[in-house]
Structures are given as C-alpha cells and as structure tokens.
C-alpha cells in the first residue's frame, strides 16, 4: 500500500506533529520506502504463533498497595514551562 499526502497529514495530527505542507510529499516518499521494506514480514508464516510482547518470561511481581512516593509538588513542577499555585498551566481549553 502507498501513503499519500493526506494520510501523512492525518498521521501527523495523530502524533501531534505539525508538518509543513511542503514536507508532506518528501515524507510520504520516505515513509513509503520504509513501509515497503517492512512488508517483507508478510512472507513469514506466523499461523498459530502467539505474539511476543515481552521477552522476560517472568511473572510481574506483587507489591503492597501503598503509597511509596509523593508529597513533592515543587519537584514535580520544577521543570514545567509554566506553572502556578501548584498546577501545570496550559492554554485555555474551555470557553
């Protein structure tokens, strides 16, 4: 399959990446190159194979459901581009 400019624009929005109009064509070409290359996996017979999500064959360990961290709002906000009164600030989202 082949990605067109509109699809690249759509993926860009899904990934929240602004893509200038003039870059869409080149990116579509590059992404098509990579996707065309990975399509070789279709040749592999994976009938009945369970997908591998993690190589660690261990079970996740249990721990007590208790608070182990927290109470440090200053540290949490220390790198925020904008913060006030213990909150992160973002552009207005409700009218």
């Amino acid at each position, binding site marked *: 399959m082949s990605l067109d400019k509109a699809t690249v624009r759509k993926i860009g929005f899904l*990934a929240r*990446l*602004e893509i200038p109009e003039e870059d869409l064509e080149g990116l579509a070409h590059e992404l098509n190159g990579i996707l065309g290359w990975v399509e070789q996996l279709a040749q*592999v017979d994976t009938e009945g194979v369970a997908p591998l999500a993690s190589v660690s064959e261990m079970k996740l360990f249990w721990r007590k459901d208790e608070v182990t961290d927290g109470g440090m709002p200053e540290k949490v906000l220390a790198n925020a*581009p904008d913060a006030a009164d213990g909150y992160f600030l973002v552009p207005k989202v409700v009218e």
Partner: protein
Amino acid sequence: MTELTSLTLAGVRDGLAKGDFTSVELTEAYLAAMEAHKDLNAYIVTCPEVALERAKASDARRAKGEAKGPMDGAPVAIKDLFCTEGVQTTAASKILEGFKPQYESTVSAKLKDGGAVMLGKTNLDEFAMGSANITSAYGNVISPWTAEDDAAALVPGGSSGGSAAAVSARLAVAATGTDTGGSIRQPAAFTGIVGLKPTYGRCSRWGIVAFASSLDQAGPMTRTVEDAAIMLGQMAGFDAKDSTSANVPLPDFTKALTGDIRGLKVGIPKEYRPDGLNSEIAALWDQGISWLKDAGATVVEVSLPHTDKALATYYIIAPAEASSNLARYDGVRYGLRTGADGSLDEMYMKTRAQGFGKEVKRRILIGTYVLSAGYYDAYYLKAQKVRALIAQDFREAFKTVDVLLTPTAPSDPFPIEGGAKVDPITMYLNDVFTVPASLAGLPGLSLPGGLSQRGLPLGLQLIGRPFDEETVLRTAQVMEKAAGFAAVPTLLRGGK
C-alpha cells in the same frame, strides 16, 4: 608512572587501593583530557564541580578505610539518556534542553552509591535513535579514530557514540550505554572498546529516557572485558521501580573470568554469513573461530532461520513503542514549549515539530501509522509474531550450544559526511547483526578483534543465554587475550 588516563578500571581500582594515586588526581587528569579533546563533542555537558566533589568524598572515605566497592573513586561518563539529579539530561534532543531531573536513575544511582565519580553526560543520537551519532541536536560526535589513508572524520557509531568515543579516547575510564538494537555494541566495535548489552531485565530501566521499552537495556562500555564485568556488577540488580526488572541472583561477574573455556560449545549462525558479507569482517570472524578452537572450545554451525526478518521486525516494534513513549513530550510538564498562544493542540503540534529532529519524527510517524486503526494487525501484531519466532530460533540453538559468535557490525566505521547522506534503510542495516539478540532479550557483547586494512577497529559479538552474562564474559576474555588488541585511537598517537 604510566599516564593515569591510560589505566583500565581494574587498574584504577588497584591503584586507588594501593594509594598510588587519589581519585582527585585521577579525576583532574580526566577533566584535563576532556578539555583538551572537546572537539570530539563526546560530552553534551561536563560537570567538573560534581566530579571533584565526589572524588574528594571518595578519597576521604578511603582514608578512613571505608572505601565502598571496586568503582569507588573511578571517573566515569554517563550517557545523556540517564536522568541525573540536578544535572541536565537531554537525550540529545532540543525538546529536553535545560531539563534538570529531580531524581536519579537507578543505574546511575547505583554507580554513585558505589562511589563512582560522574565526569559528565555523553552525547548520543537523539533519543538513542541512530547508528552513527549524527542525529544529536548537540552536534555530531567525532571518532578518535581516522583511517590510515584518509583524514576524513569518522562516526563513532551510535547511539552511544559519545560514551564510546569518551572511553576510547581516554576521556573516561568507563561509561554507561544503552542498547535498543545495537546502541552499545556497534559503537563499541567502531571505537575498539568492549560493550556489553546485558539480558533484558538485568539492569533497571527506571530513570532512563525511554525509547522502546521492550528492548531498551543499559550496560557498560569499557576498555577491557574485565572492566565490563566489574562495571556490570555495579549497574545491575533487581529494582522494584521497574516492573520488567528481573529478580534473579546477581553473581560476581569477575569470578566468571576463569580463562578456561575448554569444552565450551560455540555456535556459528550460518545466516549471519550472507552473500556479499564484507571480506574483512568474514576473515575476522574466521579468526575468532580459530581462537576459540585453540582455547579448547568446540565450534559448530547453527541455524537461526528468521535472522533476515529481524531488522524489519525491529523497525516496526521499536518505532511503535517510541511513538507511544515520546507522546509524553507535550510542552506541559517539562522541556520545550512553543505556540502556547494558540489552542492546546496547536501547542502540542508546534512544540513537538520544533523540539524533535528529523529521524525522531520519522520514527514517530512510522510508529503512529503501524499502531493506527486498520493497520495494527498487519504491521504491529505481525511483527510481534515474527519476534516470537526469532526468540524461538535462539532457544533452539541454545539447546545445543553455550554461546554464539558473530560479527558486531557489517563494516568498519564510515565517514560522518557520507553517513548524513545515506537513506534510512541503509543506515538501519548497520544493526543487522545486533538486532536479533535485542529482539530475543539476550546478552550480547562486542569486543575489539582487530583492525581493518584501513587501520580501523572491527568488533566480534558474543551472544549468550538469558542471564548468562558469565559465559559471555568468560569467552570474551579468552578471545580478548588471543586477539591481543593493543591499538589506541589515532588521536592518541599524535595523529590527525
């Protein structure tokens, strides 16, 4: 006395213990070397004050007879992907410029607690995405090696290129690296040092800027196999803060270095010798096989039938996980923010467009696409199934052999200028020999095996069973001795 910066980590450990020199003297020697070779751009930030303060504390501990462990007082570099409290951590991205973590990653904390001295944060490919260290927002890293017949600046490999260049050029006695598809092993091969990617789960990922969470693993980059064993012992161990951290016994890795591999069964995967394999690489590999035979090991051919599909599998899984992990850079909690005068979505989009570099954006887009509705099964799920087959190949092979020997990289180091021009897939092919072990979560080590005809380092890779770094290290040390690799980078020979 030999130059302090030429000592190995084991030499530093012994010299400090005997009182031949202090950690402050050693640290000062390294800081001077770092200053003298700034042009390699191996470090994004240096932290001389932190380093000297820790060196003084180490010397004071030692004077009181309270020295901590084998790395107490040893000056090391930390890849700028590990969060270090109060010291800028960027992942080589503009989007994290100025970010000062309020906490320390588990691995760097273990090193710190063991008394290691942090010299600075080493350069890397942006978010560890690259094989040449040419995607950093803070400039390319230049290898301390140059070819005999050509003065062109070469890449140190990637993504841990700054760590590799620093260790090779004697700008740190050892360094941390991280490896997702070869990012420790390939740069180690390109710079003539030892790089060990441990078993997935051996070192905690907590506090390491995430690239592809099911693949990322931290490990040591050192000048000798013994040093790798020492440093791994200081980096590894169970950590409740990382749910994928393995709760397995932590051996003394240096005890595995017995020098005896008689009766060891070594597998040579035939699929790693494709038509057109570089003849120098093939010759070095054959050389490695004879070293092992000479040492009493049995060498047999094995088959890993899905090897040729590993790279394509990786380039679905890694970008998919990256697109998800990198969603956190949104201009809200840390890092760059632009376009805040528009809507929230506009701010996200402008911040990310401006903060991420080209390769990172490319991988985010690929990852987003393969995870998007309608394509998830065809790409991502398919890749996870092929990944299962790749892991199964290794399990089968390890029923009959103890360790595998392969080349680390398909060529010797290439020029920076050429690297910037190649298309993405050609660049991805650098990881063709390292990616399969990553997908299977296995320990892999690259050691310098010799020089190419152009006088540049070539690496050999050993791959072991899960959590059997000991056999990998033991075998590597035997090969290291046989190889007698003593070449130092061109830079240190008074070369260009």
